[in-house]
């Protein structure tokens, strides 16, 4: 297990290093003159030169990259151009909000998707299965900004049950924020739901066909016990991986959802940073998002190995 962990960690570090290089390339080298991107076409040469000095753009690229990475690792994330605020507290506060929304989304989506997937597999080929399969295919196709707008129309404008705007106050606790979180979380849930449910259905079906299941049924175990103790234990293994992968989708999804609901998370901050060409802010948000995604994958890998000895020992 220790060797497995060490290998996964090493792999994670290499990937993060290459990804950070990629982020640096995109934000600092690719545009040619970043100072001009930030200040616009009409900027004067002295102003451009001053910004280049401030960003350290006059130094050779490898030096720029290393200084930037080391500064980030030491917690010095710089100052935002758009707001003149220190970036770290801003990004961490928004990250907290995004994590709150992501957590609620996963808490709704994962149990619901597993229940739907198992239900569909147990009734494979009959109408509940068909309904779940077709509905999940349809839901997969709906972009978050469409489902979000529909939910707003129905629950906020027609029924007036929930607020349409989710711009929670910075000091609001989870319970205070909850009513505002429900619609964004439901919107993000719909995207994940179908994907996890379909994979759960497939893996439950596969396990149901195995010999050990037949043995368990034939020796007279009640169906519930067969399902919970034998089938699900094996069938839900791939689901662990799928949930980790869907964190990537969740991050993409949350960027859109937060913009639909004006929710003060990392995704909303990202589009703000892009509108203002706030390069240091963009870099910090990207690194944090990539780090969160990588950690989710690591947790899934470790969990998978804990649950499945074949991987750990192999």
């Amino acid at each position, binding site marked *: 297990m220790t060797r497995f962990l060490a290998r996964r960690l090493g792999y994670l570090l290499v990937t993060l290093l290459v990804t950070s290089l990629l982020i640096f390339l995109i934000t600092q080298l690719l545009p040619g003159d970043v100072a001009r991107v930030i200040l616009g076409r009409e900027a004067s040469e002295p102003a451009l030169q001053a910004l280049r000095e401030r960003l350290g753009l006059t130094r050779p690229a490898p030096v720029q990259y290393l200084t930037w990475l080391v500064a980030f690792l030491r917690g010095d994330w710089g100052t935002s151009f758009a707001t003149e605020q220190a970036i770290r507290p801003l990004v961490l506060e928004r990250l907290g909000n995004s994590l709150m929304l992501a957590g609620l989304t996963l808490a709704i989506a994962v149990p619901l998707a597993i229940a739907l997937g198992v239900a569909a597999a147990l009734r494979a080929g009959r109408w509940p299965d068909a309904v779940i399969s077709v509905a999940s295919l349809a839901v997969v196709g709906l*972009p978050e900004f469409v489902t979000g*707008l529909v939910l707003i129309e129905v629950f906020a404008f027609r029924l007036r049950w929930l607020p349409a705007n989710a711009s929670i106050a910075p000091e609001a606790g989870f319970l205070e924020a909850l009513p505002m979180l429900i619609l964004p979380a439901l919107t993000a849930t719909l995207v994940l739901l179908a994907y996890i449910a379909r994979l759960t259905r497939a893996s439950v079906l596969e396990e149901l066909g195995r010999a050990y299941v037949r043995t368990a049924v034939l020796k007279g175990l009640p169906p519930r016990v067969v399902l919970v103790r034998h089938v699900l234990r094996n069938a839900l293994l791939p689901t662990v991986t799928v949930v980790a992968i869907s964190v990537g989708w969740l991050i993409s999804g949350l960027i859109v959802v937060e913009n639909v609901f004006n929710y003060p998370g990392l995704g909303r901050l990202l589009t703000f940073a892009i509108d203002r060409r706030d390069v240091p802010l963009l870099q910090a948000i990207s690194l944090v998002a990539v780090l969160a995604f990588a950690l989710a994958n690591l947790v899934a890998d470790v969990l998978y190995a804990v649950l499945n000895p074949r991987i750990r020992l192999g």
Partner: protein
Amino acid sequence: MTTSPSPGALATRGPHAFGRALRALFARPGSAIGTSLVAGFLLLAAVGPLIAPYGANEQVFAEARQPPSLARPFGTDHLGRDVFSRVLLGARDIVSVAGLGSLVAVVLGAAAGLLTSYLGGLVEELTFRFFDALLAMPALLLALLLLGMLGPSRANVLIVLTLAYVPIVARVVRSVVLDVKSKDYVAAARMQGEPLPAVLLRDVLPAVLPALAVEAALRFSYAIFLVASLGFLGAGVQPPSPDWGLMIREARTFASLTPWALAAPAVAISVLVVAVNLMAEGLARALQVTRGVR
């Protein structure tokens, strides 16, 4: 120079392969509906400019904010533009950008996957480590970063789609190649002294094709989704282009005044993506491609 064909080759080759695949696609109601709808959208994209009653940015201020009627099937928006015409003309935009983007990604991804995984060794290791790093960024984040720094334009959206999808396609291709590489017929071809490109194209590629076809359909559906999301976020194609995502973004402000201007592009995107998904599902079933966990 003949070698024994792989099972995959049997499914995709032969005089009637195309007809067989088409029949399989229409064998189930879901994929039949999906495939027909996709064909319909492609047709609309082709003839849209011919049948659109108004130009995409033709403004008739006197007729602004009109609800749907016979003359204006989807009504007019806050600027007096004909929503029906804009949706029609937007079909060409999204189908061409998403289609071209996924096509380039599939071709490049297949080439990269075939070549590197066949060669193996350091080339493969380095290529796929780089792809891992690209995939470590959620697609929309990568897209927004690139478009934010390069500036939004159609060409840059294409670059984004390519960068986001080449690694995924390459991975799918690699998984098949690794499987086929050890098969006797490939070893036989090599030992006969066939040059590497011939082995790759004649013996390995046919086995990859079914999985590649399914992946292409899936990429198309994700590309539509991504392009529309970028439009909605204001990072993709810029106003006044009749991009569906952009139309939703613009119409949102006037949702209570002109709900039809919001509903029409939203329904269009949803139907198109669901149709492509249904087609991809049907294709996977017809070609017997099972997709593992990515």
